[in-house]
């Protein structure tokens, strides 16, 4: 079941089109990455899902029904430009945001105490935000985003501005929220985080959806039949053994005697023959397919080479 379906959404501003006929389905319980270069339209799409702005055309469905004002109670949103009231006390402020998401004051206070204890920041309750460091404020911001236990969490560039320790903390929290049943959308251009956490992705470039799907599927689908062979032996021998069977792209030798050959094979069924031929000429230590990283796919897609 898809928690969110975005159908043919188009949004234009005065001088440019931010989203052009974008359709995306976000499965319930997934961690969904929204990728794309700066200015591709990611933030606009997230704002449309949050009902902050309305699309010119198309619609957003939440559990199969067009999204309503009530549904925002089930969404937690952390925008890229994060912010809190500087002169307001941390506790009061968190309660204020929780109330806006439909929680009672009592309920909010109880849950907040729990989160503050979990992050070890109980003593900040009566401090003003202006007295907190950036990292501290981000923790508070994260708590206010997830406090009302939303079914859908939307993070716009969640890792930007976090130090490595807090970024890791955030990543673990995101995974544990998914395990508790939440669906998570986040936009990013940090590709390593995509491979580590995302189940599904959509790549948006120049306002259009150019690539969508399961992360592993995409990587394998865009594998280019490139393999690497680690071996011990003479380069000349393996080269002549493989001559005519495949294209040799690159070769490396290391001082400890372990050499690497990068090859391109035209079709899958030739793999066994190549392994046999190579095995007879040198001592093979490993033979593996080079699956492209999301980073490679991202760059190739954006440059139109996919």
């Amino acid at each position, binding site marked *: 079941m898809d928690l969110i379906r975005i159908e043919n959404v188009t949004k234009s501003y005065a001088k440019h089109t931010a989203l052009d006929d974008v359709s995306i389905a976000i499965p319930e319980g997934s961690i969904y990455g929204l990728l794309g270069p700066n200015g591709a339209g990611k933030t606009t799409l997230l704002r449309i899902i949050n009902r902050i702005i309305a699309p010119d055309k198309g619609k957003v469905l939440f559990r199969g029904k067009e999204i309503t004002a009530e549904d925002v109670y089930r969404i937690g949103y952390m925008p890229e430009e994060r*912010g809190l009231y500087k002169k307001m006390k941390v506790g009061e402020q968190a309660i*204020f945001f929780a109330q806006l998401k439909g929680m009672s004051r009592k309920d909010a206070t109880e849950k907040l105490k729990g989160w503050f204890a979990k992050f070890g920041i109980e003593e900040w309750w009566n401090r003003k935000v202006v007295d907190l460091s950036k990292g501290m404020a981000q923790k508070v911001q994260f708590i*206010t985003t997830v406090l009302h236990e939303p079914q859908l969490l939307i993070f716009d560039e969640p890792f930007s501005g976090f130090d490595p320790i807090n970024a890791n903390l955030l990543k673990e929290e995101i995974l544990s929220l998914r395990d508790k049943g939440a669906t998570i959308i986040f936009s990013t251009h940090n590709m390593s985080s995509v491979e580590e956490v995302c189940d599904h992705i959509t790549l948006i470039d120049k306002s259009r959806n150019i690539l969508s799907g399961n992360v592993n599927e995409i990587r394998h689908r865009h594998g280019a039949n490139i393999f690497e062979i680690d071996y011990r032996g003479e380069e000349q021998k393996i080269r002549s053994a493989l001559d005519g069977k495949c294209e040799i792209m690159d070769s490396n030798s290391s001082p400890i005697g372990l050499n690497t050959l990068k090859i391109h094979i035209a079709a899958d069924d030739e793999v066994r023959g190549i392994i046999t031929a190579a095995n007879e000429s040198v001592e093979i230590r490993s033979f593996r397919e080079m699956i492209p990283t999301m980073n490679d796919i991202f760059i190739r897609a954006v440059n139109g080479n996919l």
Partner: protein
Amino acid sequence: MKSKIGIIIRREFNERVKKKSFIITTIITPLFMIALMFAPVLISTYSGGDTKRIAVVDESGYIAEELINNGELVFEETALPLELARKELSDYFAILYIGEDIEVNPNSIQIYNNDASSISVEQGIVMQISSVVQNKKLQEQNIENLPQILEETAVHINPQSFKNTAGKVDAEENSSIASTVLSYILGFILYMFLLIYGVMVMQSVIEEKNSRVLEVIVSSVSPFQLMMGKILGVASVAILQIIIWALLISGLVYFVLPEVLPDQILEAMAMVKQGVPPTEIPGGTELGMLQALLVLSDIGYIGGIIVTLLIFFFGGFLLYAALFAAVGSSVDNPQDAQQLQTPIMMPIIVSIMVMLSVINDPTSDVAFWFSMIPFTSPIVMMARIPYGIPTWEIVVSAVVLYATFLVVVYGASKIYRVGILMHGKKPSLKELWKWMRYK
């Protein structure tokens, strides 16, 4: 939906009311205002100015002895000739020379100031000498019983003004001094509140935009709810302040004034309240002051004015605050707001200028129309109300004001909705117009 606006209003209200600056201004200002009202009385009672010694060189032979010393001026005749007096008597405030031919030559009075010259001293001297010379001339006419004649023919005018209400037999008393003062005060209170609290809304929007907290909030509430919540929250702070001031001032008038005022005035006020016409009050109670005090202590009248003040403040504030919010939403910092807020400030400044003319003629066409046009009506109408104007005018003006507010808030919220998500370049008025028409 409603409760979300409620949450926003509560936050705005709590954050502002808890501030030290709010508590201090709320309590200090009325004390300051009362002090300002009574300052002239206190100053004239207790200070009275320094005594100024004037040396008089009198060649007329009779004027110097007729000059009367009062609190400010002390005349001392000197036998020294003018030249010597000017050299020797430098410790006097001034040396007054009266020529022999004073009766025929108006230029034969000379004042040599040792200190900076003072118009009030000069006028005091001239008035005294004029009356001495005039008396001398009258006596030379050899009229019998001159002092009695003068006393019997003396004229003292004390104008009585009443409100001419058709159908009412007993004309309601109406003090024009009290009206003028009240008119000024009400106009300025409204002016102050519209500006101070309007700009407060604008700054608070800019601050939310700067701290980037806006996008978090509008993911939970609609921009319209947020804007209205902010405007109503700030309005409730202002109204609380007005009510506290009204209570403090009336408390001072009821409990402190009777202790401070002379018994004579209190007795006179009591007599008027029992039905004695103010013109027949014995004793030299100043009538204008009496009437002003009577107006101040008329609970029904003052209560009515406070209610209309709240109605017009609320309407005017909603109108201007919506505009200020729109300006705040479209810029990134207060400097950029300067230019865009000029069109909003203009009607407020025009109102104050019109108000000054209203005080001279509260029923003129200018006064009428400016108290109907919604952007100037709050201030101008409040300035007219103390003079007593037909109820229908007040009702029509209020209805127009609130109707305009609905239109303006609709347009402003459209700008606000787009503006709060825009960062960077300051938009032009043309761009703001475009924003209003986005879907």
